[in-house]
């Protein structure tokens, strides 16, 4: 039995038949077993609701409505994991490690701060013993620094 933590992009690709990544995600879902478990972070809801608010503000009512329906589809099908505080110490270590490595590579401070959500998702996965599934390469970079993280890109 495998336990996965889906990043927000995965269900969005499933709901978008025109996405070039739709087929790959579908095929991977078809290979899963009944006993496999799929989770999502509650943070995915935060960012999806933010997207809904932005669409409403820009007058894109239909996309806002569809985004709300996607949120319902996610809530109905996947187990949402709350933040409990248990992941905080892993987050701290991970961010410090990434910051240190980025400085050595002379990356700008900006590149560090934009990954806080990714670090939280990665540390949640480690805390619960889940494999992160995403099409975002940041998780591969985190894994290189933090080998405890299990990561798969299904695309």
């Amino acid at each position, binding site marked *: *039995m495998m336990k996965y933590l889906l990043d*927000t*992009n995965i*269900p*969005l*690709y*499933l*709901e*978008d*038949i*025109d*996405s070039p990544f*739709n087929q790959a*995600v*579908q095929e991977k*879902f*078809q290979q*899963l*077993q*009944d*006993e*496999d478990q*799929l989770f999502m972070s509650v943070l995915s809801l*935060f*960012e*999806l609701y*933010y*997207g809904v608010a*932005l*669409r409403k503000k820009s007058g894109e009512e239909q*996309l806002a409505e*569809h*985004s709300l*329906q*996607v949120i319902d*589809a996610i809530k109905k*099908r996947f187990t949402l994991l709350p933040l409990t505080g248990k992941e905080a110490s892993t987050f701290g270590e991970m961010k410090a490690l990434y910051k240190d490595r980025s400085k050595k590579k002379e990356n700008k401070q900006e590149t560090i*701060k*934009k*990954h*806080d*959500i*990714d670090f939280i998702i990665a540390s949640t996965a480690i805390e619960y013993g889940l494999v992160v599934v995403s099409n975002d390469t940041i998780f591969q970079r985190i894994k290189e620094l933090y080998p405890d993280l299990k990561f798969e890109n299904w695309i």
Partner: protein
Amino acid sequence: MAQKRLTITLPGSAEALHNALQMLLQYGLISEKKAHSIEGKRKHEQTRKKPGKKSRWAIVAEEMVQEGLLRGKSEKLLESIRDFRDNFEIPAPVDKTVK
């Protein structure tokens, strides 16, 4: 002396079966080889019994594809998600040392 025969109804789900076999192994009621053989046999039976049966996750994927709520719009939503992540920061601890 005649050996007593133990009859146990093994559970249906793969996980429960695995746990039951582990318990039997722990108490020395079954050999490791036998446990492997039972698990393998059950797996084979389940595959054989249900040719082409879709897993619940295959069904979930089909449902979501059929809903097609975001036709050609997933990238637009992902942009707002990236915007959210780019602007989200847990501030670094403030140094409150009195100098």
